[in-house]
């Protein structure tokens, strides 16, 4: 299978604080990888390196330019980055995803606009095209930002903690949507919520300075240990219940 990009013994740091060390990592076309690990372990930094926002201090990241370049990466940042009271419409926000393919002087063509209309329909946002962001629910807002990430038909979709602002009624729809998108693009999803994403991703990358790749989506004790602190997993059953460790 062809790789979209490969990282070779890559290290990244902020000033003198080394956040990623000697990372080897490959992502191929149909991957759906959950990136997990403790807070401050380097998950978001990994995305920044892929996006080109942070230059590695050691090693390199190589893109397979036949399949992908930096213009064909979609990015869903954590919700806190934009101001939801900003006077901007749903259509405008989704169209801003086209900026990655434009020069500094940018006009939106009519085909850009009709593509925005398609995305709005695809994500179930019809009727909200001219709404401003502060009129939307958390789930709708998330779909708008997902729309911004996918309007340019990316080959790789990067999601940073999408669970942070999802409302529970929309949660299943959202992951179902990702599964559909995964047919056309690779997905890398950062989350600290290992329990919720476990049923959706195909494989895991545990990031805690180093990176360990786990090809299957089963959660192992080793992965849980990456957190370095006690965590609890949630399972669903006919009767709500708590699972305790076996007695020794």
């Amino acid at each position: 299978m062809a790789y979209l990009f490969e990282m070779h013994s890559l290290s990244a740091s902020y000033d003198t604080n080394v956040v990623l060390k000697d990372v080897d990592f490959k992502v191929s076309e149909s991957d759906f990888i959950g990136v997990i690990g403790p807070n401050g372990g380097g998950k978001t930094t990994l995305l920044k390196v892929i996006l080109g926002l942070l230059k590695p201090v050691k090693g390199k990241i190589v893109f397979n330019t036949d399949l992908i370049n930096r213009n064909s990466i979609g990015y869903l940042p954590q919700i806190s980055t934009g101001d939801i009271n900003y006077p901007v419409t749903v259509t405008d926000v989704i169209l801003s995803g086209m900026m990655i393919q434009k020069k500094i002087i940018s006009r939106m063509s009519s085909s850009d606009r009709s593509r925005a209309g398609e995305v709005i329909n695809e994500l179930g946002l019809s009727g909200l095209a001219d709404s401003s962001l502060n009129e939307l629910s958390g789930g709708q807002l998330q779909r708008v930002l997902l729309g911004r990430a996918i309007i340019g038909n990316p080959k790789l979709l990067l999601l940073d903690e999408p669970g942070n602002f999802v409302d529970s009624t929309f949660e299943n729809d959202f992951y179902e949507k990702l599964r559909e998108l995964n047919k056309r693009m690779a997905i890398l999803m950062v989350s600290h919520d290992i329990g919720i994403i476990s049923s959706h991703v195909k494989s895991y990358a545990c990031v805690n300075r180093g990176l360990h790749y786990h090809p299957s989506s089963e959660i192992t004790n080793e992965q849980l240990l990456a957190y370095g602190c006690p965590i609890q997993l949630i399972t669903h059953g006919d009767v709500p219940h708590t699972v305790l460790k076996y007695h020794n």
Partner: protein
Amino acid sequence: MEESIFQYDFIIKGLLGAVFASITAGLAGTYIVSKRMVFLSGGISHASFGGIGIGYFAGINPVVGAAVFSILSALGVEYLSVRHKIREDSAIGILWAFGMATGIIFIYLTPGYTPNLMGYLFGSILTVTNADIIALGIMSLILIVYFGVFYRTILYISFDEVFARTYSSYVDIFKYITTALVALTIVLNIRMAGVVLVISLLTIPPNIAMLFTRVYLKIIVLSVIAGFTGTAAGYVISYFAGIPVGATIIFTLVVIWIVAKVINQVVIKKNG
């Protein structure tokens, strides 16, 4: 005869001044209100008073002094806030008072006559020169071209800077250019509205506009219209009532804002 020529000149100057003030304030104002930069802009306008004082003292045009001072202070605050080395609101507060203090000291030190301080603090159409009007006209043109060409770039950078950095390496350059243009707009409007009042010339019109639309381009257009209405009405009222023009303009704009707010509430109630 002489009086009618004077009146004609006064009306033309007033009308052109109102048009250019509302265009520049509408464009720059929409930017600062949307981006929550009102306090920074207040700081810029007060800091520029330092430049006015130094201009008097050094015998150069006070507006030039104010322009240099305000652009440097605006870029300074932007730079400091980008680097996160200092709290932005504290930096603005210091700059605000420092500019006023510098201005007063240098005007006090200037030998000879005391300049018309009230005119700079509260604005006066009588001190507006033809050169001021021409400068405002050029500024209007610059802002229209700048916002026209880079509309989406400016909109998206100010909406979500973090996301913009993922596709553009020009984010900081655009922020600095736009902030410098805002500073210049403030300085050029000081003759009309004064150091103390100019900030409301920029902030009230977009707030009137945002009662009726959330679309950025429409906010700009409505701001210009609201700004022109308030400025022109303010002129006429100040002329006939014999009260200071800067204060009358701001007062008129606030009245328009209150009326718009009430209409807006009534419409919402009716529809809701």
